[in-house]
């Protein structure tokens, strides 16, 4: 009751609060909007107008709960879930939550719009909404100034000419760090990645615990003007570095190093309002929501038909061949990998 | 009977600070409490105030056991030995504290505060910060603060100790008249026996946690119950009465010594018991002379008696090594039972 009460007082999120006139309410539902709670991560963002339209159209009040460490929270609270529907869990953590029985399957009628390509499982426990890549980013200016060719693959990164140029993150504490580890595992195989990392380490990779520090301080292509021209970051980072109106971004991605992260939405088992939860899933696959994803959250919409913003077209073409890893495999071995990685690289 | 302290003991851990004390202060009476440093005077006052838990015994006021009455409802005033002014309030606010608490109206408060400051000789000090007061000024503020709410029983712990003689004398008179006109009972601790004499209706002498003697000042001074009391109230020597008998001129005292009949009876002498007298029968050798503003004390050796102290006029010229003769003046003698 407290949740709903507070939510309805805030126009930014529950735009429907004032719009409960009979004219706006579908017949038979009654004038009072139903409440639905969306549990998501701290980076969740939606155009308030788009959300308001959705609420009015469906006579719903959406309460957004943004939480750190989403996967773990969902698992911990599965007996008395925080809300009805959750967005934001990704393929590195999804299977853990699904196995714990956090989600109740739902097949959206809008699936064919492209989401099926990233389907998590046959039951549709989760529905893919968007994806992004974690890639090595490169500072173009640095390489051209040095007259050195930019690396193009993971293999390049262990070559002597690229010694001491890369900064990454700890797989144990950072999600980009983990994604990059998974990329190397996808590339070198479950047996070969340790050899690759040994070489990477010998070639002077610098590891920070967090993305913020490595990108903002060590990377030469960011405003921090650090001394490393290669950084493990998001595929969507380069547009953010382009000054307004620039024709090219000062940074780019090393296409062969990308690991694809898919973000899902799912209906929480034990939802108080599953119907509304289903509507939220549908909403996230809707063209209106999908179109806002690049601007709002720096990710690619799963719906191929979505038109990307101009600077994305210019700077941030999604790499064609990304490294992918079976979520089930990830879920099974991730902890061991992290442990081994930690022993190998940090220990 | 206003205050009754009945078999009261107060202990600090193993140490007994107040030991089975019984005391009475009747309504309107002023009791002076005297005793050496550390004998338990402050502790007794604190116990009566309700600040120190009583180990044994009962303290009652108007026949009401005080144990059940919280200290702020007792209506007693207590002036601490070291003032304990509220550091964050100025002089006026300190003095007016009890009045504010009692809900007196502002204008009356002001009148009373100014009046009391005038009494203690601190007119014009009301807005001074207490940290800037001299020792004696702070003590006077504490006194004024304790007096302001006209408590039914005042407990004063050396209220005038830090003051010079003339101020002490004038304040003593004011204090006495304030207490008497308001019919306030009081117990006050003092080291100054003149002070005790000056305003007390009754004095209690305390030693080692116990009351050794209580009575009217004259009574106590003239008839100390034991050697300790005698010495404490200013008798400088105690000798077997038999030794002094031959020199006693006063018939009354002679008679009472005779009546006692007891050879172990002793007599206490003040410095004024021995007077230089060319016709005196007591031969003494002057050892040294201590001058005071208006008299001198001469330490003499009397064969068979030992060292004695003799009061002489300030201008009488005696010098160490001189032989003088003395007579015994019964005014300075007291028989110890």
């Amino acid at each position, binding site marked *: 009751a407290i949740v709903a009460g507070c939510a309805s007082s805030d126009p930014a999120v529950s735009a429907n609060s004032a719009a409960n006139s009979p004219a706006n309410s579908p017949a038979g539902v009654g004038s009072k909007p139903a409440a639905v709670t969306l549990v998501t991560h701290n980076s969740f963002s939606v155009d308030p107008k788009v959300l308001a339209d959705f609420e009015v159209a469906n006579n719903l009040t959406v309460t957004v709960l943004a939480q750190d460490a989403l996967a773990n929270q969902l698992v911990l609270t599965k007996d008395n879930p925080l809300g009805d529907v959750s967005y934001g869990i990704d393929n590195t953590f999804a299977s853990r939550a699904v196995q714990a029985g956090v989600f109740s399957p739902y097949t959206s009628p809008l699936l064919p719009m492209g989401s099926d390509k990233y389907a998590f499982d046959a039951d549709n426990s989760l529905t893919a909404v968007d994806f992004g890549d974690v890639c090595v980013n490169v500072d173009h200016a640095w390489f051209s100034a040095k007259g050195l060719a930019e690396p193009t693959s993971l293999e390049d990164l262990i070559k002597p000419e690229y010694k001491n140029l890369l900064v990454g993150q700890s797989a144990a504490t950072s999600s980009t760090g983990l994604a990059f580890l998974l990329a190397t595992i996808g590339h070198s195989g479950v047996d070969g990645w340790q050899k690759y990392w040994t070489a990477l380490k010998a070639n002077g990779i610098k590891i920070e615990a967090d993305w913020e520090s490595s990108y903002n301080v060590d990377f030469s292509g960011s405003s*921090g003007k650090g001394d490393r021209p290669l950084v493990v970051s998001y595929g969507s980072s380069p547009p953010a570095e382009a000054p307004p109106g620039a024709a090219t971004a000062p940074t780019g991605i090393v296409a062969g190093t990308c690991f694809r992260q898919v973000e899902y939405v799912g209906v929480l088992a034990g939802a108080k309002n599953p119907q509304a939860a289903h509507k939220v899933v549908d909403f996230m696959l809707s063209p209106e929501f999908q179109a806002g994803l690049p601007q709002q959250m720096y990710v690619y919409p799963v719906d191929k038909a979505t038109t990307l913003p101009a600077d994305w077209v210019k700077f941030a073409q999604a790499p064609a061949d990304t490294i992918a890893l079976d979520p089930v495999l990830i879920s099974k071995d991730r902890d061991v990998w992290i442990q081994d990685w930690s022993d190998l690289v940090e220990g | 009977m206003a205050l009754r302290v009945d078999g009261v003991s107060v202990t600090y851990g193993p140490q007994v600070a107040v030991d089975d004390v019984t005391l009475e202060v009747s309504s309107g009476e002023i009791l002076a409490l005297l005793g050496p440093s550390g004998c338990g005077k402050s502790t007794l006052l604190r116990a009566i105030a309700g600040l120190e838990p009583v180990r044994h015994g009962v303290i009652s006021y108007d026949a009401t056991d005080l144990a059940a009455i919280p200290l702020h409802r007792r*209506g007693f005033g207590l002036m601490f030995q070291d003032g304990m002014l509220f550091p964050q309030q100025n002089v006026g606010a300190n003095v007016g504290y009890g009045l*504010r608490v009692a809900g007196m109206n502002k204008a009356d408060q002001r009148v009373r505060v100014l009046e009391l400051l005038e009494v203690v000789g601190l007119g014009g000090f009301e807005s001074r910060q207490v940290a800037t007061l001299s020792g004696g000024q702070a003590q006077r503020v504490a006194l004024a603060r304790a007096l302001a709410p006209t408590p039914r029983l005042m407990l004063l712990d050396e209220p005038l100790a830090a003051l010079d003689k003339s101020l002490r004398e004038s304040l003593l008179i004011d204090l006495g008249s304030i207490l008497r006109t308001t019919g306030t009972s009081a117990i006050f601790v003092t080291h100054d026996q003149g002070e005790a004499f000056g305003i007390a209706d009754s004095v209690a002498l305390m030693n080692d946690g116990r009351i050794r003697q209580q009575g009217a000042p004259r009574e106590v001074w003239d008839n100390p119950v034991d050697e300790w009391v005698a010495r404490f109230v200013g008798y400088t020597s105690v000798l077997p009465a038999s030794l002094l008998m031959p020199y006693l001129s006063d018939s009354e005292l002679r008679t009472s010594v005779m009546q006692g009949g007891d050879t172990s009876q002793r007599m206490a002498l003040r410095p004024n018991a021995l007077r230089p007298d060319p016709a005196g029968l007591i031969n003494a050798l002057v050892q040294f002379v201590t001058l005071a503003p208006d008299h001198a004390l001469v330490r003499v050796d009397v064969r068979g008696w030992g060292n004695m102290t003799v009061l002489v006029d300030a201008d009488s010229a005696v010098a160490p090594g001189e032989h003088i003769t003395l007579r015994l003046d019964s005014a300075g003698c007291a028989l110890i039972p």
Partner: protein
Amino acid sequence: MNDKPPLRAHPEDRVGKLLRRMGLVLAALIPLGIFAAFFFYPVVALVGRGLVGPGGGGPTGIDLTGFADVVGRPRFFKVAWFTLWQAAVSAGLSVLLGIPGAHLLYRRSFRGRSALRALVTIPFVLPTVVVGLAFRTLFASSGPLGSWGLDGTVWAILLAQVFLNYAVVVRTVGTTWAQLDQRPEEAAQALGASPTRAFLTITLPALGPAIAAAGTLVFLFCATSFGIMVVLGGGKFNSLETEIFRQTTQMLDLRTASVLSIVQILLVGTVLGIAARIRHRTESTLRLQSHVGAKPRVSAADWPVVLVTGVVVALLVAPMVTLLGRSLHTETGWGFGNFDALASTGDSQLLIVSGWTALGNSASAAAIAAALAITLGVLLSMVLARKPRQAAARRSLTVLDGFFMLPLGVSAATVGFGFLIALDKPPLDFRGSALLVPIAQAMVATPLVVRMILPVLRATDDRLRQAAGMLGASPVRVWLTVDLPIMSRALAGATAFAFAVALGEFGATSFVARPERITLPILIGRLISRPGAGNLGMACAAAIILAAVCAGAVFLVDRSVGARRGAAGIGAF
């Protein structure tokens, strides 16, 4: 004649006695209840999850094998030991540097003192991630102080922690020091002790409880620091806190996390116990005086203190200047573009609310949290300041004292997760409630309030209270007219501090803040985790705003307390 009514035992005396007793019990029970509900219960619930049943899942009883497992790992000892020593060294350094600062800022007068006091308080409220980045920027090999070679070393961590906590020592020690009677120190000098010796043998012991309190606080902050450890530790330096975070969020290994949490609580508890002992041993009734005349002006003899403080302030200012530089640096050159961008919800649509709205959220949450923390802290201090005669009662107070410090020593992740699983049913159905943010903030601010007020209350001569009682003041009145004015300075300081803490709180808030009610630190955290100079610039601008608001609040409180000193005493005509 004396016009007092006859003295009779009233029935209400009995009630009064009962009420006084109960009042104390209530004063203890209210905070105890709130802490139980919003701290202990959630933490126990979460830790319990990790220990009940295999893998923390099933209901098959308590499983303690995790301990052997976790404690058996060599990494465990490394991490536990590092946690302890780095916190101890940071606390030691902060105390060492903070004492001269407290002297200069609270025992000497000079122009701009209030401003300097506010300035040194700023670092404390800066989000740790921002501080971490500022230090890395300074120390990175390409940075202004790159030549010092501190990047990636433990020194960077220690310095950043001193940077954050210098104000804790300066303010906690300073507020006590400001009221300390200097005559015992004069007496020592009259006995031949040099000023240094007099300080070491007389003043320092008198400040002991305050120093111990400050040292304890800094130790706790550093033992549980997360942002600094992550940003500056670069994964090489791991504390129990980062390890717990890693186990809960990356490994989803609740069992290990629980074991680590328990270890953290035990270690912290042990240190708290030792600190409480030190405090107790050094505690004595001090001569405290409020409203003494003006403090002496800085003189030539103060040069060592001025020198040390000058160096420290320079070190404090350097990262702040870095931040300021970043906030003013935009893609189109120098200017206030980042601040303007904050005012809107941003081009990126990243911000659900504008910087100003977030600031408003922060301020209102912090105000509620500060009010709550002050209320709870004062209630608790009243109880803890008592000096009962019975040894048993004294011991239980000591235990209680340590108990309420624990919120500072428990991982924010543990508390945050605990909230989620524990506060999900009526009457504690608080998940997602807007009140949870200030409550969470108050849980960490309350111990701070207690630590700042308690030394002053404990040092107050009981006879002052007795004097008031003898003048007819009821216990409540005694408290209002004696205790309250005496602790007013510390209380004002604590209020400013509690507000600052709440303003800057990140850990627990990040678990419970609702998107539309996000606070400025959360907003900063979000901005900083995005690429692009604009976002970083906006994050720095937001941090500057946070700093300015904190400094402003602290400045105002300091000034208002300072101004009152000159006025006539409380209750004067």
